[in-house]
């Protein structure tokens, strides 16, 4: 699970939308991830102004039938993955 509480994208993180449901994010260090539509929304929300739980609440509101507890766990796991890939860091 993530230690990042208020995530923000690293500098020079490149994103490229390839299709309706696939976006590739690429770091200066050479790591890259393929994100689905929800993943692209989450990384877009990682601008240093929101906590992980606030991001989860926004995502949950946009997903019909999703439980908040489940979404929060998924978002935390995803933020952890983004952090491990060098795409986000804790906001200063």
């Amino acid at each position, binding site marked *: 699970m993530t230690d990042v509480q208020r995530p923000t994208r690293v500098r020079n993180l490149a994103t490229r939308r390839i299709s309706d449901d696939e*976006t590739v994010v690429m770091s200066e260090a050479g790591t*890259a*991830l393929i994100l689905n539509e929800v993943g692209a929304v989450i990384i877009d929300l990682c601008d240093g102004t929101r906590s992980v739980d606030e991001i989860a609440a926004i995502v949950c509101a946009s997903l019909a039938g999703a439980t908040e507890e489940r979404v929060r766990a998924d978002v935390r796991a995803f933020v952890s993955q983004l952090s491990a890939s060098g795409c986000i860091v804790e906001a200063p």
Partner: protein
Amino acid sequence: MNTIAKRALDTDVSIATDSALVLASVESFVATYPAAVSEPTVRYVVDSARGIVTRNGEVLVSGFRQDALAPFLERELYDSVCERAASPSFVVHAGAVVRDGRAVLLFGASGAGKTTMCRGLVGRGARYVTDEIAAIDVALRVRGLPRPLALAPEAPPDDSFARTLRGRTSGYAFVARDGTHVAARLFALDTEHIHDEPAPIAAVVHLRHAREEAAGARALRASEALKLLWEQRLRAGANELDVASALVSRAPAFELVTHDVDGACLAVDAIIGHS
């Protein structure tokens, strides 16, 4: 001082040295580069007695052992010309060969088989661009550093590759940074086997050597190809993302799981033929 002047990824480079050992090693690794066409903009001078290497008058290292100077120069030259090639190109850790005027880009992690595949495809009539460093321009054409191909140390001196192609083999012995002795043999292809003009890319192939998986090619989605290419990028440069994105959206991309070089070369031939 003896001076070698070569052209590498559109940069003219000269290397001047007072050492016969350094000169022989440098000649080995730049043997297949075309000659410089203008006054070199990157000029190395090697003072072997003091172990000093300068670039355009700036001291890069001093106190280096003579047998460590050539490998240092090779890495330094790669870095220097890649940096100059990076804008507006996408510079990537990849091999490339050309058949019928169209290039196939072969990329993958170290050990994936880029050099082996280049050797195999050139042995089947393709022309060699590079086995290591490729620069892709905004028109989606590839150029490369056509460095001599490394032969496996255990391969016989007259192995089939060296026998069937025109070129010459040279030894390249040096002491690596960690102090270990490295002996390599380099095979410098004759110019008839080398393609040194920008070539349009017909296909992009990610190589993966995996005995436990079935050999063969599968089409990659553009997102997969972009991710994998980005992971092999060598230098940050302006336009690199636009170039890489355009490449994966226009050129068909494949992942090729390899077991043996013959089967893999047939698969690449089929990919070029159908692209």
